[in-house]
């Protein structure tokens, strides 16, 4: 891993003060004279480093603090606690040089001008980000080729489909060749084919430019395809920072044992006892079972299955990442 982080976040926190009152007209009147507020800690004490060339998945359920963190790192929000340095800048000081080297792509926010051809918006970005004529031409040609934009750039953004517009948005956001990319749900609402194209493009851009990428997505396919490392945040608190597969082994208390029988087997009463003897039978038919067992008992249960049943094949696997993440979010396991 390169030595100097490109993004360095230290004990970052963000607290919002929001008004609150009880329901009803009386409470509404009382609130005029006695206004009550409460503090909501959207992000608390979050620390991490990201190095050049890394693609990091930033995961968490809705309201976990992902977008708030990204907005702080892109200079849209001031934190209430902590520090951050990105490319050597403090993001919320909003130095022009910093804004000119990063991009925040939000799945449902438009950079493109709605009513003019996409290429005209790109010309505008060229002026905004002070891109030289030669760089602009070269980058535009490359982006058009990578994202297959040729037939789209002369149409107004309002005439494009969601997927087409997203491709154009991404190209526009990368014309100034940012060294840091914050991608907030870049594939939201897109069909599977378009999601795959966007994923491939992000990977390609990362490989070619060495840009650091921080990605939030509710589609685990995005995360699995792009991110070796994930940061999990829940209720504003960092739960996990590390290898994607390490997340599974750390947070999943279960493993799945799948067995195939050497001969068709009719469960004559065995299935009723199986839940007690082996673990949770997730699926069962004449040719095989799938059993979920506590991680610590995997070896013992596998031995029992081999001893008790006519097993032709046995495989032990981790549960799907999606399932683990869902479980982490649901239970809010704290480190």
């Amino acid at each position, binding site marked *: 891993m390169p030595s100097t982080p490109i993004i360095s976040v230290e004990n970052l926190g963000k607290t*919002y003060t929001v008004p609150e009152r009880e329901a009803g007209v009386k409470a509404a009147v009382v609130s005029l004279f006695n206004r009550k507020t409460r503090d909501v800690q959207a992000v608390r004490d979050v620390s991490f480093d990201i190095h050049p060339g890394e693609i990091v998945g930033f995961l968490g359920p809705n309201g976990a603090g992902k977008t708030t963190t990204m907005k702080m790192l892109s*200079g849209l929000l001031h934190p209430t606690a902590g520090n951050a340095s990105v490319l050597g800048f403090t993001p919320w000081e*909003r130095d022009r040089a910093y804004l000119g080297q990063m991009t925040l792509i939000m799945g449902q926010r438009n950079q493109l001008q709605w*009513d*003019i051809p996409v290429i005209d918006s790109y010309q*505008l970005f060229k002026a905004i*980000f002070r891109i030289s004529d*030669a760089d602009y031409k070269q980058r535009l040609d490359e982006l058009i080729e990578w994202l297959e934009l040729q037939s789209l750039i002369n149409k107004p953004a309002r005439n494009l489909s969601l997927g087409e517009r997203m491709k154009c948005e991404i190209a526009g956001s990368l014309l100034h060749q940012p060294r840091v990319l914050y991608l907030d749900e870049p594939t939201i609402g897109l069909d599977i084919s378009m999601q795959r194209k966007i994923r491939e493009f992000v990977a390609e851009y990362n490989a070619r430019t060495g840009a650091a990428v921080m990605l939030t997505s509710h589609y685990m396919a995005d995360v699995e395809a792009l991110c070796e490392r994930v940061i999990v945040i829940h209720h504003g608190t960092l739960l996990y920072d590390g290898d994607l597969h390490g997340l599974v082994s750390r947070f999943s208390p279960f493993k799945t044992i799948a067995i195939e029988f050497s001969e068709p087997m009719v469960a004559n009463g065995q299935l009723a006892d199986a839940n007690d003897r082996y673990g949770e039978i997730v699926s069962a038919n004449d040719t095989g079972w799938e059993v979920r067992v506590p991680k610590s008992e995997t070896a013992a249960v596998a031995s029992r299955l081999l001893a008790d049943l006519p097993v032709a094949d046995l495989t032990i696997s981790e549960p799907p990442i999606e399932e683990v993440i869902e479980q982490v979010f649901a239970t809010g396991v704290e480190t």
Partner: protein
Amino acid sequence: MSSSTPDFSKPSPRALLQFYRGQFAAALGFNLAYRGMVALWVLGSVMQPLVLIVVWQTVSEGRDTGMTAGQYAAYFMVSMVVSHMTFIWHMWEFEWRIRSGYFSPLLLRPVHPIHHDICENLSYKFVGLVGIIPAAVLMALIFGADFSGASWRSLIAFAPALLLAMALRFVIEWCLALAAFWMTKVASLNQLFDAFFLFLGGQFAPLGVMPEWIQTLSFALPFRWSIYFPIQVALGNITGADLWIGYGMQPSDRSGRGRVATDVEARGLPTTAVERSHACLHR
């Protein structure tokens, strides 16, 4: 991909000019695409002076109000042009911008968001003139506008007065729009401000027919210098030292508020807007 990083630490007039050209063209494209909307706005701008001419000409019949019917027609005709050229709607839009997140993309650029709005505003005025100028000519002919005080000198003097008024009103109302960072429902404040503008700017009645104390008060407020002053300059009613005093009042009022706009961006106050929208989500 090639990589040459531009130097953002130095201002680049060339880059800003390119931006203005591009953004103006984009805004022009928008206003031409939605020309029906622009036409309706322009129609609304014509209706008010039209009604006021009729009312004030009726009022002045058979009594001395200090102005003749022709002078009223000329006054409100020029008022319509000045109002159109100084009109800004952004304070009505900021609340939506903040709540919808539309402001965020503008804040992510290494260019102050006010430049985007200046281009939008200028483009609207440019397109709107296509309706305003013929309407003004018709109004002058139909109501017998009296331009006896105007001359080529007053027209020349009108140009800087109008430009300064455009800048003054833009900066004031853009700064007022920033109130949306602190207030969730900012429309009531905007409405109050508009009422002051109508009354103290001379859009409802020439300030010369107002009570003395209102005229005195208006000298200390920006409304007079945004509307009434350029109208009177165009009509040849302000000359000599008064003209230079007026020119001086316009930028002095603007510079203080302009400072607010730049400070707000530099100190990150727009972020408060985003914070408010976030806070709304957490309610």
